[in-house]
């Protein structure tokens, strides 16, 4: 029996809930990492890994898989949470995040962790790698697609715009870039540090098809990803309006949790709120 839209969304929400718990735990155990931007991206990443993308956790190097490039590489917790839930890595292994000898490096390392498609970390680089991947699929006339998640602060890097220009130039309609517009970077609100808006107008001017969604509304996420599949010779840009730290009342919409783990007391509050055990 095929899944109805309602059932699909219920399933995705359950996975996203577990992913947020993983994110909070991982960063708490490591006492470092980036929970805020991981939680803002969770609903989109869950939809990609557990509905939209064709991939095989038993065969991570399957040639015809869709690719996900986490250009905002500091948000490894959301990526590892997805890879653990999908079965690329054991959930237990999340305890090793950011520790010596771990496959789960602070920033993604494709040579260490199965399922990681691109080693990112210095910002602005993922979209270029995604462009190269999309070009390869075009060259081989393969139907696989590339999804690239951009950070908002990251979009201040000039390389993003070099990549944006080249994606349109080479008509990469197999490439989707998703901006996690959670509105905060380390030094504060993006609009105060260095305003990046209007991003829809910018990408449109660069020759992309564009759309704006609520990045926590599953109906909108599902619809826009489906729409992006037929983008007519243009790459597709999605501005996903999200909340930093989404999922826990006191982390939500706060820049404070960009680059720090929760304290013990905060974890107790957060887990109680999420209906999960702590410790």
């Amino acid at each position: 029996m095929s899944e109805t839209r309602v059932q699909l969304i219920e399933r995705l929400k359950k996975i996203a809930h577990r992913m947020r718990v993983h994110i909070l735990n991982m960063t708490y155990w490591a006492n470092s990492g980036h929970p805020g931007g991981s939680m803002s991206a969770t609903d989109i990443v869950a939809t990609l890994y557990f509905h939209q993308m064709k991939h095989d956790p038993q065969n991570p190097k399957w040639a015809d898989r869709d690719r996900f490039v986490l250009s905002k590489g500091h948000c490894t917790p959301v990526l590892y949470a997805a890879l653990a839930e999908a079965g690329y890595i054991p959930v237990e292994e999340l305890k090793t995040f950011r520790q010596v000898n771990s496959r789960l490096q602070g920033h993604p390392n494709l040579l260490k962790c199965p399922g990681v498609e691109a080693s990112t970390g210095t910002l602005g680089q993922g979209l270029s790698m995604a462009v190269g991947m999309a070009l390869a699929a075009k060259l081989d006339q393969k139907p696989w697609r590339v999804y690239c998640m951009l950070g908002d602060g990251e979009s201040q890097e000039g390389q993003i715009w070099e990549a944006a220009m080249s994606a349109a130039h080479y008509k990469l309609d197999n490439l989707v870039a998703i901006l996690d517009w959670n509105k905060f970077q380390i030094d504060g609100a993006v609009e105060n540090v260095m305003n990046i808006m209007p991003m829809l107008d910018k990408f449109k001017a660069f020759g992309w098809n564009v759309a704006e969604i609520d990045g926590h509304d599953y109906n909108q996420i599902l619809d826009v990803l489906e729409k992006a599949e037929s983008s007519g010779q243009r790459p597709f840009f999605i501005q996903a309006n999200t909340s930093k730290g989404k999922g826990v009342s006191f982390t939500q919409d706060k820049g404070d949790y960009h680059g720090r783990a929760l304290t013990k007391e905060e974890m107790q509050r957060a887990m109680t709120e999420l209906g999960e055990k702590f410790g």
Partner: protein
Amino acid sequence: MRNLGSLEQPKPVGPLKVGDAKAMRDAYGETLVALGAKDKNVVVLDADLSGSTKTGLFAKKFPDRFFNFGIAEQNMLGAATGLALSGKTVFASTFAMFATTRALDQFRNALAFSKANVKVVVTHAGLMTGPDGASHQSLEDLAVARTLPNLTVIAPADAVETSQVIELAARERGPFYVRLVREKTPLLYDEKYRFKLGKASVLQDGRDLMVFAIGPMVAEALKARGLLKAQGFDIGVVNTASIKPFDAQTVVKYAKRDGFLFTVEDHSVLGGLGSVVCEVLAREQPAYVYRHGTHDLFGESGESKPLYKKYELDAEGIALHVKKALTYKQKVLRR
């Protein structure tokens, strides 16, 4: 339209022989075309310099597998990485300076860190860039490239060696940095020559001093050998094209024998061949080293010949420094 720049077609010539002049970048372009015909997986990228780097020859023959990224080297190296991670054998070209300094973060964090199967083949290295001047001259690229983990670094000495290095780079998986110069240089090898990764090529032995040279300096050092011979000196010349991996054995062998070596490079002595040799000797066989090259400076405009003359990197300049080195050698080894 893809911009092919000021692409010149190579003039048809008969078989070249040792001593004839040919640009390494011409050999690069021709070898790319041959590789492209053999292997459909080979793709070539450039950043608006395809006429100069000679990737334009490949672009003309295989337009579907050539991608011009415009004046955007950072994006080019990133996209090169993405193509390689998707199974392509990628050659990406620009000038030495742009690849190693402009796009260093991408070279390091995307390409080398991922062990991507990308061959960064650069031209216009060193002072031989000519009249463009300091902004386009690369006197630091070997120092930069050889510190990047996972990267193989080679600077061929002539067009024959260049072709072999390019073929080898296509065969071997993993990232390469290949350093070529702009001007024509004399052929030192014939087709019987076999380039070996991590092996130096001893062109001449010499009683008085062994000169370890790289890139276009090898031909100049051989000329210097002739000049010095007439003055009663006997120097040997070793081509150290393979910078990483490096042939420590050959260096140690002559250091043991002579106690004093000479290095010459169209590059800063900080971090280049001179440094590599000193690092090896410090570990295995302490010896004196006279390092000739540029000394902590930016270049300047001028045709290659007068520039080489000014910076004493032509045969006469090298001969001058060899004599200085020999005087110094006598002094220090007599102690």
